[in-house]
C-alpha cells in the first residue's frame, strides 16, 4: 500500500505548478505565433469592460468638477481664439476643397484610382496601458464603429500610432514610440524615403539603415510616404532632431521627434474605411528586378 494522506487535498502543489506553467507557456506561444486566441481575448475584454469603466469614473468625475469651475473670462478668451482660428481655417478649407476637386478631376483624367477613402472616427482614450515596457493606449471605439487592426491613428498635427487589436467596444492602439513600431516616411525637402522606428522611450524615434552620406539635415520634416498601403500619404510623422554621422559605421544614427502630441491628447482620430490597394505586379516583372526591400509597416 502506498502512502495516503489523511485528508484529500487534490493534486500536489508541484503538479499544479507544472500544470499552470505549461498552460501559460502554451498560451504565450499560441498567442505570439497564431491568431487562435483572439476570441478568448475578446470574451475576457468584454468581461473586464464594466470593471474598466468603473475604474475610469473617479478621473472622469474629477475632470467634470474641474470643467464646472472654469471661469467665464477664460471661456470668453478661448471663444475669441477659436473664432479667429475658425476663420483662418475656413479660408484654407475653401482653398483645400477647390484643390481637392481639381485633384480628383485630374486623377480621373489620368485614370488613376483613388487609393484611400478614409472615414475619420473620433476616439477617446479609455486608459493608457499600465505596462511600463510598452507604449499602448486603449480607445473607446471598436469594431462596431468600423475600427480594424492596421488602421492609422492621428491627431490634429500628425500620426500618433496604429490600431493593433480590435474588440467590439474598444481597440488597442500602439503608439509610434513603442519599441520597433515602424512607419514608412518620406522627407518633405527632397523626397528621400526611409523607415522610422520607435525606441520605447517617450518622445524619441530613430531612422534606421540610412547611409552616412544620406542628404538629411536637422529640422527636416518627415511625412508618411503612403507606399505601405496602410498610412495615407502626406501625414506629418516627425522632425529630425539629432544626426550622428560616424564613418566607422555603415549607417548614420538619426533621431527624430514625433510631431503629434503622442502623450498629451485625450481624443484622437482613427482613419477607418476600406483601402483599395493596387494589385501586386505580375511575377515576371518581379523576377527581372532585384529583390525588393519590404517597406511595409508592422501589422499585428
Amino acid at each position, binding site marked *: 500500500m502506498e502512502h495516503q494522506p489523511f485528508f484529500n487535498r487534490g493534486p500536489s502543489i508541484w503538479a499544479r505548478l507544472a500544470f499552470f506553467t505549461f498552460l*501559460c507557456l502554451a498560451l504565450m506561444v499560441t498567442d505570439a505565433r497564431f491568431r487562435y486566441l483572439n476570441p478568448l481575448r475578446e470574451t475576457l475584454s468584454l468581461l473586464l469592460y464594466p470593471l474598466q469603466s468603473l*475604474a475610469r469614473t473617479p*478621473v472622469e468625475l474629477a475632470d467634470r468638477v474641474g470643467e464646472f469651475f472654469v471661469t467665464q473670462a477664460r471661456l470668453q478668451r478661448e471663444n475669441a481664439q477659436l473664432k479667429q482660428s475658425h476663420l483662418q481655417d475656413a479660408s484654407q478649407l475653401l482653398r483645400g476643397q477647390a484643390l481637392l476637386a481639381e485633384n480628383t478631376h485630374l486623377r480621373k483624367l489620368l485614370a488613376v484610382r483613388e487609393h484611400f477613402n478614409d472615414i475619420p472616427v473620433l476616439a477617446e482614450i479609455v486608459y493608457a496601458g499600465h505596462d511600463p515596457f510598452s507604449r499602448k493606449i486603449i480607445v473607446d471605439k471598436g469594431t462596431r464603429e468600423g475600427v480594424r487592426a492596421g488602421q492609422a491613428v492621428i491627431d490634429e498635427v500628425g500620426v500618433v500610432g496604429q490600431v*493593433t487589436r480590435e474588440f467590439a467596444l474598444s481597440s488597442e492602439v500602439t503608439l509610434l514610440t513603442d519599441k520597433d513600431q515602424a512607419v514608412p516616411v518620406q522627407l518633405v525637402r527632397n523626397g528621400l524615403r526611409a523607415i522610422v522606428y520607435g525606441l520605447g522611450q517617450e518622445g524619441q524615434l530613430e531612422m534606421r539603415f540610412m547611409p552616412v552620406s544620406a542628404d538629411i539635415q536637422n529640422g527636416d520634416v518627415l511625412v508618411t510616404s503612403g507606399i505601405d498601403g496602410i498610412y495615407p500619404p502626406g501625414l506629418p510623422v516627425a522632425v529630425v532632431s539629432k544626426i550622428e554621422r560616424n564613418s566607422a559605421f555603415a549607417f548614420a544614427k538619426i533621431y527624430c521627434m514625433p510631431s503629434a502630441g503622442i502623450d498629451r491628447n485625450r481624443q484622437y482620430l482613427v482613419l477607418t474605411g476600406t483601402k483599395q490597394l493596387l494589385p501586386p505586379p505580375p511575377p515576371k516583372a518581379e523576377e527581372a528586378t532585384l529583390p525588393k526591400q519590404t517597406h511595409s509597416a508592422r501589422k499585428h
Partner: protein
Amino acid sequence: MPSSAMGKQQILRPVKGGFILFTLLAGLMFNLLPWQGVGLMLRPDLVALVLLYWCIHQPRRVGMGAAWLLGLMLDVADGMLLGQSALAYTLFVFATLLLRRRILLFPLGQQALHILPLLLLLQFTTLGIKLAAGSAFAGWGYFVASLTGALFWPVVASLLMLPQHREIKTEPSIQAGHK
C-alpha cells in the same frame, strides 16, 4: 491590533466566498485605475497583495487557479501577450504557498519583510518574460512598486482581516448564552 491577535492565535470567523471574490475584484479595479508616470511607478500591485493574503490564510480556496485567471485578466486589460502575467502570478503564488506556514509565525510588520522578496520575484519574472519577448528595459524604478507593495502589506492585511474580527466580539456573549 491584528498583529498581536496573530501572536495569540485568535480564532477567526470563517470567510465568506463572496467576500474573497469582492476583494479580488476590488484589487483588480485598483490596478486598472488610470495610473500614469510616477504614480504608475509607485503603485503597489494590489492584486498581488490580496492574492497573497488569501493564499496565506485560505490556501484551499484561493491558489494557483485564481492567480492564473487574474493574471490572464491583467494580460487582456493591458494588451500584453496572453499568459505573461498569468505565469508570473502562478510562480508568485507557488512561492507563497511554500512559505505560508513560515510567514504566519510572524507579526504583520515582519511579514512585510517576507512579502518583499515574493513581490520582487513577481516583478523579476515579469521582467524576464518581457525582455525575452523583446521589450526595452524600463529602468530600475520599475522595482520601486515591490517596495511600496511591502509597505502596504500591513494595511492590506489588517483591512482584509477586519470583517472576521468584528464577528468575534459578539461570540463570547453567544457562548455565554448557551451556557
